[in-house]
C-alpha cells in the first residue's frame, strides 16, 4: 500500500490516510489506484459517446480507425469532448450565480426574511452598471430590480452580457472581432451542446472558439454575478483571521461541517449555530458549544466573510469524517463525493443533502429554500446536535494540526489595503511591479486530484513563485492547500518571499499569498487585473500585464471552464496534468500555440510545479520586457 506521504503533503491528511489504511477503509486514493490503468482513450480525449452509432474511438498509434462512424476525426472528437467540459463547468458556476440571484430577490422582496442586504455600496455600484435608477428609491426596490436584471443576463438572447463591459476596451473589441463576446450566459452553454451534437460542427477551431465564448459567459457573467451578489448579500470580504486543517474540529463541541460551494445556506447555518436557542440545545446534550467548520468552497465563502475555520479541501472530505468527530456534514452542490454516503454512518456522521440538484440514496435530505432559509438552517443544526450523543469517543481521532491564516482579500479591498480611507489606490501595487519589486502576479487556483500528492502542486508552485517575487493570488482548494502550509500568514513573507516582494508585504502587512475566495471568486482576479490597468502604467489590455494563471492539481470541468475564460481574457495559464486532448495534435496545438495569436494568451501543460512556475515567470519576464519595465530591483538575490 502506498505511503501516506505519497498521497498528501499534509501531516493531518497523512494521519487520517494512515488511519483509513489501518481500518482497511478505501478512500479516493485507493479508488484511484484500483482504477489503474486508466482508460488511455479517455485520457487522450479521443473516445466519442455522443451518438449511438458509437461509442467510437480513434487509434492514437495510427494503426486502427482514424475516424468515428460518422467520420469525426480525433480533432473533432477531442474538441467536442473538451468544450462539453467547458459547458458543464460554466453551467455549474452560472447555476450557482442564478441561485444567489434568487437569494437576492428573496431578500429584496421579503425584508422580514432571513437575508439582509449587507453591502449597500456594492449594490448601488451594480445598480449603476445595470442602469437602474437609485435616486429616492428604497434599497429593497433597487435590489429587486437588480435581481431581475441579473436574472435576465442568464436568459439573455442577444446583445452582450453586461459585466463583460468591465473588461478593458481592447479586450472587448477583441472578443467582438473574433465573435466570442458572450450574448447570454445560458445561451452559450446551450449552443455548445447543440454545436457538439452529432453531425453539427466538424471544425475543431470553431468548436473551441464557442468554448471560449461560453467560458467568458461564465467568468465575466455567471461567476462574476455570483461573486458580486454574494458580496451584496453577505458582505464584501475584508482580511480576516481564521484557521484551517482537521485540527479545527473540537472534541467537546458539536462539529458541523458545511461542504460544497454555495454560501446561501451556510451563512444561515452560521447564524443558527450562534443562536442562543441552538446553544441551549447543545448544552442539553453536554456539548460545550457548536463548532461550525467549512470544507471546500462553501468553507472558503464562510472563511472569508465570517472567519469560520476550514476543516479542509476537496480530498479531505472523507478524512474529516474519519476523525469520528463530525456530527453532521451538510452538503450543497459540487465536488461532493458520493463515497460520503457509505463512509459517514461508520463514523457516526450524519450526512445531510440540501440541494434539490444534489441528493444521495439513503441520505437524509433536508431541502433548502431561500424563503425558509433560517427554518431549514435550524433544522440542520438541530440534527447535528441530536447526533452528538451518538458519537463514539473511542473512535474520535482529531489530528493535532491547525494553521492560522489571513483570508478575505477582494479586488475592491486592495484599494483600501494599499492606501487606507484617504488614499485608496492600486498605485503601490502598480509601482511595485513597474519598479521591479514585484515581478508579476499569478493566480494559482483549482482542485485537488489523487494523481498528484495532495497539496504538492499548489504549495511547491506558490513557494517557487513567491521566492521569485511573484505575488500569488489563490482561490478554492489551492488557497486551502497553501493555508495548511502556512503561506497565508504574513510572517511567511519574511521567510520565503523574494526580497522585493518581501519589502512590499512588510510595508503593507500582507502575506505574499493572498486568499481571494472560492472558485467562483476567480472573477475577482479578473477585476483585479482590470483595476491594475485602470491605475495605469502597465499597458492597455490584460494580455499586456505580467500575470499568469495555473491550476496545478485540477480535476473538475469547472477548472476547464475557468482555464478557458482566463486564457480568453488574455492570461497565460499552466495546467498540471494536460487537458484530455493529447490524442489530437491540432487541438493541442490550438490550445498551446494558436490561441496566442487569437486572444493573446494560451495554455501550457506541465506537471512539475517548479517547471510550471518557471514557465509563468518566463512569461512575466517577457511581458515586463514588452512593457519596458525596469529590471527586477534585486535581480541577483532573486536568481539564486
Amino acid at each position, binding site marked *: 500500500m502506498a505511503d501516506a506521504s505519497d498521497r498528501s503533503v499534509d501531516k493531518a491528511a497523512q494521519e487520517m490516510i494512515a488511519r483509513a489504511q489501518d481500518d482497511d477503509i478505501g478512500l479516493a486514493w485507493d479508488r484511484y489506484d484500483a482504477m489503474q490503468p486508466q482508460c488511455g482513450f479517455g485520457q487522450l480525449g479521443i473516445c466519442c459517446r455522443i451518438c449511438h452509432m458509437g461509442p467510437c474511438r480513434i487509434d492514437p498509434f495510427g494503426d486502427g480507425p482514424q475516424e468515428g462512424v460518422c467520420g469525426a476525426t480525433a480533432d473533432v472528437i477531442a474538441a467536442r469532448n473538451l468544450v462539453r467540459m467547458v459547458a458543464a463547468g460554466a453551467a455549474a458556476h452560472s447555476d450557482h450565480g442564478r441561485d444567489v440571484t434568487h437569494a437576492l430577490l428573496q431578500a429584496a422582496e421579503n425584508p422580514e426574511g432571513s437575508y439582509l442586504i449587507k453591502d449597500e455600496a456594492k449594490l448601488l455600484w451594480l445598480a449603476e452598471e445595470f442602469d437602474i435608477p437609485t435616486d429616492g428609491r428604497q434599497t429593497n426596490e433597487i435590489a429587486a430590480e437588480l435581481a431581475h436584471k441579473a436574472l435576465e443576463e442568464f436568459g439573455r438572447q442577444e446583445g452582450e452580457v453586461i459585466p463583460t463591459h468591465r473588461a478593458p476596451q481592447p479586450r472587448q473589441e477583441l472578443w467582438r472581432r473574433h465573435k466570442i463576446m458572450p450574448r447570454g450566459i445560458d445561451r452559450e452553454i446551450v449552443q455548445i451542446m447543440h454545436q457538439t451534437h452529432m453531425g453539427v460542427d466538424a471544425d475543431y477551431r470553431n468548436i473551441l472558439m464557442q468554448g471560449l465564448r461560453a467560458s467568458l459567459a461564465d467568468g465575466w457573467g455567471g461567476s462574476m454575478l455570483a461573486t458580486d451578489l454574494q458580496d451584496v448579500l453577505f458582505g464584501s470580504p475584508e482580511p480576516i483571521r481564521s484557521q484551517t486543517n482537521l485540527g479545527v474540529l473540537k472534541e467537546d463541541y458539536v462539529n458541523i461541517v458545511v461542504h460544497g460551494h454555495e454560501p446561501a445556506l451556510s451563512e444561515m447555518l452560521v447564524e443558527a449555530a450562534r443562536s442562543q436557542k441552538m446553544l441551549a440545545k447543545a448544552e442539553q446534550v453536554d456539548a460545550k458549544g457548536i463548532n461550525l467548520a467549512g470544507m471546500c468552497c462553501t468553507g472558503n465563502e464562510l472563511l472569508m466573510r465570517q472567519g469560520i475555520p476550514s476543516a479542509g479541501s476537496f480530498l479531505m472530505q472523507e478524512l474529516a469524517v474519519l476523525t469520528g468527530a463530525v456530527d453532521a456534514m451538510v452538503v450543497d452542490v459540487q465536488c461532493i463525493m458520493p463515497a460520503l454516503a457509505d463512509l459517514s454512518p461508520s463514523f457516526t456522521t450524519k450526512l445531510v443533502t440540501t440541494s434539490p440538484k444534489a441528493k444521495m440514496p439513503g441520505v437524509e435530505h433536508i431541502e433548502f429554500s431561500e424563503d425558509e432559509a433560517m427554518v431549514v438552517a435550524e433544522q440542520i443544526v438541530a440534527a447535528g446536535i441530536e447526533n452528538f450523543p451518538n458519537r463514539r469517543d473511542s473512535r474520535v481521532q482529531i489530528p493535532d494540526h491547525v494553521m492560522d491564516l489571513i483570508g478575505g482579500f477582494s479586488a475592491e479591498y486592495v484599494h483600501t489595503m494599499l492606501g*487606507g480611507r484617504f488614499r485608496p489606490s492600486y498605485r503601490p*501595487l502598480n509601482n511595485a511591479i513597474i519598479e521591479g519589486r514585484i515581478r508579476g502576479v499569478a493566480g494559482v487556483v483549482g482542485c485537488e486530484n489523487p494523481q498528484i500528492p495532495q497539496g504538492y502542486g499548489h504549495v511547491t508552485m506558490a513557494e517557487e513563485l513567491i521566492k521569485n517575487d511573484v505575488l500569488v493570488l489563490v482561490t478554492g482548494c489551492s488557497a486551502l492547500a497553501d493555508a495548511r502550509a502556512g503561506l497565508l500568514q*504574513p510572517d511567511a513573507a519574511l521567510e520565503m518571499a523574494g526580497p522585493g516582494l518581501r519589502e512590499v508585504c512588510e510595508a503593507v*502587512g500582507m502575506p505574499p499569498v493572498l486568499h481571494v475566495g472560492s472558485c467562483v471568486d476567480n472573477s475577482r482576479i479578473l477585476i483585479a487585473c482590470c483595476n491594475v490597468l485602470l491605475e495605469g502604467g502597465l499597458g492597455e489590455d490584460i494580455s499586456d500585464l505580467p500575470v499568469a494563471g495555473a491550476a496545478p492539481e485540477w480535476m473538475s470541468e469547472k477548472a476547464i471552464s475557468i482555464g478557458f475564460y482566463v486564457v480568453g481574457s488574455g492570461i497565460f495559464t499552466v495546467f498540471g496534468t494536460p487537458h484530455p486532448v493529447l490524442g489530437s495534435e491540432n487541438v493541442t496545438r490550438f490550445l498551446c500555440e494558436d490561441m496566442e495569436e487569437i486572444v493573446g494568451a494560451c495554455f501550457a501543460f506541465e506537471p512539475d510545479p517548479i517547471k510550471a512556475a518557471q514557465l509563468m515567470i518566463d512569461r512575466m519576464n517577457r511581458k515586463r520586457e514588452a512593457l519596458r519595465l525596469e529590471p527586477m530591483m534585486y535581480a541577483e538575490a532573486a536568481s539564486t
Partner: protein
Amino acid sequence: MSKIVATAAIRGSHDAVSRADARLKAALEEHGEDQQVAFPETAFYLPMACALLGAEVETLGELREVLEYAQGLLVDEPSEAVWLPYLSGVLDAGIATLLSQETLKALDYLDGTAPQDGWHGFISDTVLRTLGIQLVDGRMPGFAAVVGAAPDLETAEYIIRELQKRSILTFLIGNHEGQTMRDQLLEAGVLTDAIVEDPASGWDIYIVPLGPDTDSIIYALNWAIRGALTFGGVQKGDWKGCLDYTRAHIFAFGLGLGTIDDLKYASGAGAITMGFPVIADTEIPEIRPTGVCTYEELVRELDHDRIVQTCIDVRGVKVTVREVDVPVPVAAAFEGEVIRREDMQVEFGSKYSTAIEYLRMIDGDEIEDGKVEVSGPDLDTADEGGALPLGLLIEVAGRKMQKDFEPILERQTHTAINHAMGLFHMGQRDMAWLRVSKDTFKAGWRLRHFGEVVIAHLKNEFGVIVDKAQVTVTSVDEEAKQLQELARPAYLERDERIAGMTDESVDLFYSCTLCQSYAPNHVCVISPERLGLCGAYNWLDGRAAYEMNPHGPNQPVEKGRCIDPVKGEWESVNQFVYDNSHRSVERVCLYSLMDAPMTSCGCFECIMAVLPEVNGFMIVNREYTGMTPLGLAFSTLAGSVGGGHVTPGFLGVGRRYVISPKFISADGGLPRLVWMTKDLKDDLLEGLGERAEKLEMPDLPGQIATEEDATTLDELLAFLEKGGHPALSMDPLF
C-alpha cells in the same frame, strides 16, 4: 520592519486622539458648545478638517464632530503574529492624528496659549497666498518640516544651510529631548534674536520656527492642505482631490532629527498620507515601496552630509542649485536677508559712496565671455563697517539681444546679488546700495564675486538672450563716476522710451498664463499702460519673456480692431482670451472694473472693489491685514476674486497700475479712487502726485482716505464729504 513603525504610529494616534478628547471635554465644560473657536486670519476654519471633511468648524460643538470622526479612524495595533494588513490603518491613524493635533492647537488659540512665545504658530492665508506664487514659479521648490533637533550645532547649521542653498523653506518643529533646532540655530548664530522677537521675520530667510512641540507640525500641514483649496481649486471636503493635489504639487517632506517617538511616527503617517515622505537620521525601519507617496515613504539616512540630498531625492524636489564660483551659497532663500550695520563689513552706495550698475549690449567680438575685470582696492582694504565706491559695468551680447532688454537685464543685478548669502542689494542704476556681511567677507567675498554672480545669473536665467557676458568691477571713485557719465544718457533714453509708451503706440500686447496651473481659465493681458496684476511683469518683460521662450506662458496678443477705446476692448484680444481661457471668457475690457473686467488668478498685488454707497472704488494690498470699508479683509476678498473668474466690481491689479493714465479709465479713472491703504499710498505718493497734477486735481491724493481716516462706510462717506472728493459728484456707477 514596517510593523514596528505601524505599531508605533497607531499607538501615537491613540495618544493624540485621547489628549485632544480630554482637552476638548474640558473646554466644553468650561465654555460650552457654542464657544467660538478659530485660527487667526484664515477663511478655511480649521483647514485640515475643512479640506478633508468639508467641516466648517466655528464652535466647540462642531469641533467635537471632527474629533469623533478622528476617533472612528483609529485601529488596533497589529497583533504579534498573524497580523492583518496594517498599512491602511497606519495611514488612517495619521489623519486621525492630524485632526487631533489641529483640535489641540485650535484649543491652544482659544486658551491664548498659542502661538508660544518666540514661535510662529498658525500660518495665515495671507502668507499662504504670498508664498503661493513662489511655489508656482519655482523660486521655492518645496518645504521641509524639520522635526526634532540635530545632534550638534555644527550639524544643525550645515543642514539648514544645505536647505537654504536650495531655496527650500524650512519649518522648525518640536524637539529632541528638550533641545529645539531653533535654539541650536540661535546658538550657532544662524538665527538672531530677531527670530524670537518676530518669528514671522523668518519668512524672509526661509526659516520659520513653528512650535517647540511635535503637535506644531499641524501648522505646516494645514498650511499645505490649503494650497489645494487655494491654488488647486479643489472643493473643501473633496479629500481625494486635496490629497492628490498635495502629493502632486506641494513638494514637502518631513525631516526627523533625533529620536522618532510614537507621536512623531503618527504625525509622519499623516504627512505620508498627504504624499510627504519622512526622512530620519536615526536607525528607523524603512518603508521603501512607493505609491502612497510618489517615491519612498519612510527613509533612514544616517549620514548628515547627505541627508538633505536624500530628502530631495525621496520627495523628487526639483532644485536647480546654481553652482557659482563664489565663497557663499547662492539661492533665492537668501534674497530677503537684511544685513544690519553691526553685522556689516563694508557697504557701497546710498549716501556713503558712489555706486552704479550699468548694463549695455555691445558687439560680441568685444566680449570675452565670463571675464570679470577688477580695478581698485579690494574689500580687505576697507575699514570694518566702512564704505567703498562701486561701479559695475555689465556688457552682454547675443543674437537675440535687443536694446530694449537692457533695463530688464540690468535690473537682474538686484536679484543676482541678493541671492548670495550675506549680501544685501537695494535700489538700481546709480542709486544702488549694497552691503557685505562680516561672515561673507570672512568666507572670502571680494569685488570679483559681484561679477561672478551677475554673469552666472544672466546666463542661467536669460541664457536664450545672453550668449556672452563680461563684467568690469571698480572700486575707484573716479572710475565709478566716469561710468555714471557713460550711463546717464542711456538711463534717460530708457525712461523716455518706457514712459513714452502707451497702449496706442503698440500693436501687440502680451499675455501671461503662468498661473493657469491653478487658475485654469485665467488670462492676463499686459499692455504698456497696464502691468500684470502680480506686479512682476510689465509689457517689456512680457516681450522679453516671449523672446526668451516663444512657447512659454507669455505670448504676443494682436490688438486687432478696436471695439471701444475708452473701455479698452479689442477684437483680437477678445478672441485670444476666449481661445486661451478654455472658451470661458468671451470679452475683456482692459480699463474697466465694471464691464467685462479681466480675470484674476490669485497672485494679485492688490484687490479693487466697488463701493456703490460712495460712488467710487477702494484698493487694498495683500500685506494689509486690517478691515476695509467694504467690511471684508483682503484674505476674504481674495477668496472670491481669484481663481480665474470674471467678477464685475472686483478686480485684482498690480500696485503701479494705480498711477497709470489708463487706471480704470473706463470707469472714471483715478478720481474714482476713494480709499486705499496707508502703505500703498505712501509707496505711490510721488506717482499719485504727478497723476493728480496732470488731472488738474492737485488735492486728490489728500482726498483719498486710508485706514487711518476710515474703516467703515459711514466714516468713509464723512471723510470724503469733508474733503470734497470728486467721486461724490461724478456720474453714478449704477
